[in-house]
């Protein structure tokens, strides 16, 4: 009996693992920064290079930080969604312009619309490394104490905003964080 049953059980277990594996995305690396305060940083603002954007910006309000760049194709895909979300005014959306050219970034926002309340300009990409960024676009949800609560990797879609972001924002508001 065992002689016939065992191979079938082993095969079934393997199929189970492989089936699950088909739907996992190895490009999505969980961030160890979730639940930690935002990294300390100081960057010039995109629109006003003489003033600085620091982690202080994230105190006192729930906010999003969207990592983007003009060279990033997927950032173009999410731009309309982000613009629409920002116009609703649920939470402020901040930008981190990652390893970009200032001129092209300003042109893009002027031409296609600017969803950002403010944009930090990270020319070297060093601050992005402190945020654990490895590929734009990435979006962080930050609570009013400046703690990172959630990170979405990849272009935002209306579906992701409805299912992943809005419920989390509502929960943070409910608990007063």
């Amino acid at each position, binding site marked *: 009996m065992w002689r016939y049953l065992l191979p079938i059980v082993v095969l079934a277990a393997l199929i189970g693992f492989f089936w699950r594996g088909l739907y996992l995305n*190895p*490009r999505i*690396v*969980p*961030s*160890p*920064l979730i639940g930690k305060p935002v990294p300390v940083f100081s960057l010039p603002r995109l629109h006003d290079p003489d003033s600085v954007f620091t982690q202080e910006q994230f105190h006192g309000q729930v906010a999003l930080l969207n990592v983007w760049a003009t060279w990033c194709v997927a950032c173009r895909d999410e731009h309309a969604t982000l613009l629409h979300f920002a116009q609703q005014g649920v939470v402020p959306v901040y930008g981190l312009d990652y*390893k970009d050219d200032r001129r092209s970034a300003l042109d893009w926002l002027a031409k296609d619309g600017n969803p950002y309340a403010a944009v930090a300009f990270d020319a*070297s*990409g*060093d601050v992005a*490394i*402190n*945020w*654990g960024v*490895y*590929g734009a676009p990435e979006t962080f949800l930050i609570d009013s104490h400046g703690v990172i609560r959630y990170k979405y990797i990849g272009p935002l879609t209306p579906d992701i905003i409805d299912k992943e972001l809005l419920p989390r924002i509502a929960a943070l508001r409910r608990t007063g964080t």
Partner: protein
Amino acid sequence: MKRIVLLLCCGLFLSTAFAIDSQPPFADPASQARYEHLIRQFRCLVCQDESIANSDADLAADFRRQIHAMVAAGQTDRQIKQYMVNRYGDFVLYNPPVQPNTWLLWGGPFLLLFIAMIVLVTVVRRRAHMDKAEEAGP
């Protein structure tokens, strides 16, 4: 023919090609060796099957620059490893640490070996038993 063989042989060395950076090598060979050893231990998150030593990705170049600076500042291997893990998690390590969520990864092969041994011993014993029974038979 000779040429083709030579060309193919050259191809064998392609995989050991390293990405080239602008920073100068360390004056001190020990630091240079430490730097080269370190950058082989971290995974590039953009092209995940390459180490940051091999990868041509922009992000890998940034990591090399950071690690170069940290080695130059005299930080220990441990501190540099912690720097990477704090930001990107254990996934950046090609050599994952032994901890509860990796016990199966590290212990799995030994577990399979153990099961195989049990199966082997059982089968051998049964065979031996059957042989004996046959000898004792008519």
